[in-house]
């Protein structure tokens, strides 16, 4: 675990030595501000619900940009050989990388705390859904980041990793958007697989164990596939 933290720490710091983290953080905050304040005063309600709805959607598009380079870039520059030939396992590399990007994501989420704070100055804000919303964002984000890391483990080209991760994360988000067009039994399966379905239920302030397990399973599964991809290099 200590080695994983060392890798994660290096990854986290390296984000701030390059432009990607700053760009993503700026874009997320600006888009969120635009969409959120545009309608906030129309509703005339001191609720953070809309903010989480928008943020959840924006992050579906933004997070793959944070993960695209995680392993792809290491493969391209050859530093992956350094990591792999350290006295650690491939699993530690994957967990470390994941923790590094999760740390950056936590910073990003922390920067949005000004929204609920400013809303609470305008009216009586119910903090239950806010906490639920952040837990939901963290869980959904973890799943998207794990998927992105997996995509990054498949290629040495950042753009391909970005494209694959984006496709997958949008796919899981969009799943429950055209349910009325589908037969009922199929619709319920798709709904259950949808990120937004599980996320929205948390923004109501209800943290259901099933939702937590759903995102946790997706995260673990994607990390396991990333591990497989990294390890398969040995046997190719």
């Amino acid at each position, binding site marked *: 675990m200590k*080695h994983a933290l*060392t*890798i994660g720490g*290096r990854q986290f*710091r*390296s984000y701030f*030595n*390059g432009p990607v983290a700053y760009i993503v953080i700026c874009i997320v905050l600006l888009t969120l501000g635009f969409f959120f304040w545009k309608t906030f005063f129309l509703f005339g309600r001191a609720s953070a619900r809309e903010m989480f709805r928008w943020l959840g959607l924006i992050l579906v598009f933004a997070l793959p940009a944070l993960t695209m380079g995680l392993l792809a870039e290491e493969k391209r*520059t*050859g*530093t*992956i*050989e*350094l*990591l*792999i*030939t*350290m*006295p*650690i*396992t491939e699993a530690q590399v994957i967990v470390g990388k994941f923790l590094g990007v999760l740390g950056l994501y936590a910073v990003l989420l922390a920067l949005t705390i000004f929204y609920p704070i400013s809303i609470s100055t305008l009216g009586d804000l119910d903090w239950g859904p806010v906490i639920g919303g952040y837990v939901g964002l963290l869980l959904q984000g973890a799943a998207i980041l794990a998927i992105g890391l997996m995509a990054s483990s498949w290629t040495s080209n950042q753009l391909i990793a970005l494209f694959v991760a984006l496709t997958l994360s949008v796919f899981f988000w969009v799943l429950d958007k055209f349910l009325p067009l589908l037969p009922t039994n199929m619709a319920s399966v798709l709904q259950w697989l949808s990120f937004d379905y599980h996320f929205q239920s948390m923004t109501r302030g209800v943290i259901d164990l099933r939702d937590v397990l759903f995102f946790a399973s997706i995260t673990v599964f994607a990390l396991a596939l990333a591990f497989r991809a990294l390890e398969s*290099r*040995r*046997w*190719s």
Partner: protein
Amino acid sequence: MSDVMIEAKGLTKQYGHVTALENATFDVKRGEVLGFLGPNGAGKTTTMKVLTCFIAPSEGTARVAGADIFDDPIAVRQAIGYLPENTPLYSEMLVLEYLEFVARMRGLQGAKVRQRIVAVAEETSLGDVIGKAIGELSKGYRQRVGLAQALIHEPPVLILDEPMSGLDPNQASEIRELIRDIGKERTVILSTHNLAEVQVTCGRVLIVSEGRIVADDTPEELAARAGKPRFVATIQRNDSSADALKAAFASIEGAQNIQVADGTTSGEATIHITPKGTADLRADVFRAAVDANLVLLGLEQRGENLEDIFRELTTRQNGDAS
């Protein structure tokens, strides 16, 4: 622990239909500097990647510092300091940060981290650039950072894939000196295609070609083995044909083989005479020239050097080796 630090048994690596390495078996002892010599694509890097557990061999196995590459890859990696062919550097990091990162990954802790960084920075003369971003460094410095990284945990085994590439002659000789020092107590494998470097640095040479080990010996013995001395006579060119020149020297008793290299344009001709055994034929060559009324401009004895052997061993098979 025995004195054999690296023990490779029948290592074979296939990438699809391409055999990158075929049945490589060799031992390297403590205190040995082994040079891995071969053309590009011969299997040097593949062998190193197998030993560092970056890739697994298709067949065969190896032990490094007593640990098996399949059973205990972590112990193998811990015992090895590795400099891959493409120096693995994070260009956005400072040299100091980078070395600290590697030190921690290698399990160093507390004051030991700083202590080792200072030591390797001194060994590889990195003092001036320790606070600089790696991306700003010249190729030579980058290579030295890579080397410092490999040395940081005082590994018993060092595996260096082309450690001298990109270094200027002064830097190269410093690093060579360093490798020789390290090689006194520890085990070093280095790959190169620079023959002079092998002769100076390595106590033993493995020549690989097309995935096979074609020679395994000390540089001196390799040179001695294939290196019969030749006598090269330069004579003034007259009207006589190459055959006539050859005939003139055919009378030399101890000569096994006589070749005439026609220097038609320069007005000179050189004649290569290989002796039977190790006889010194210089006097005979002189007399033969006088008898045939030829003007001898020069006469020297040439030993075959490592370069000739290398060329012979690695091009003997098919010529399309990449």
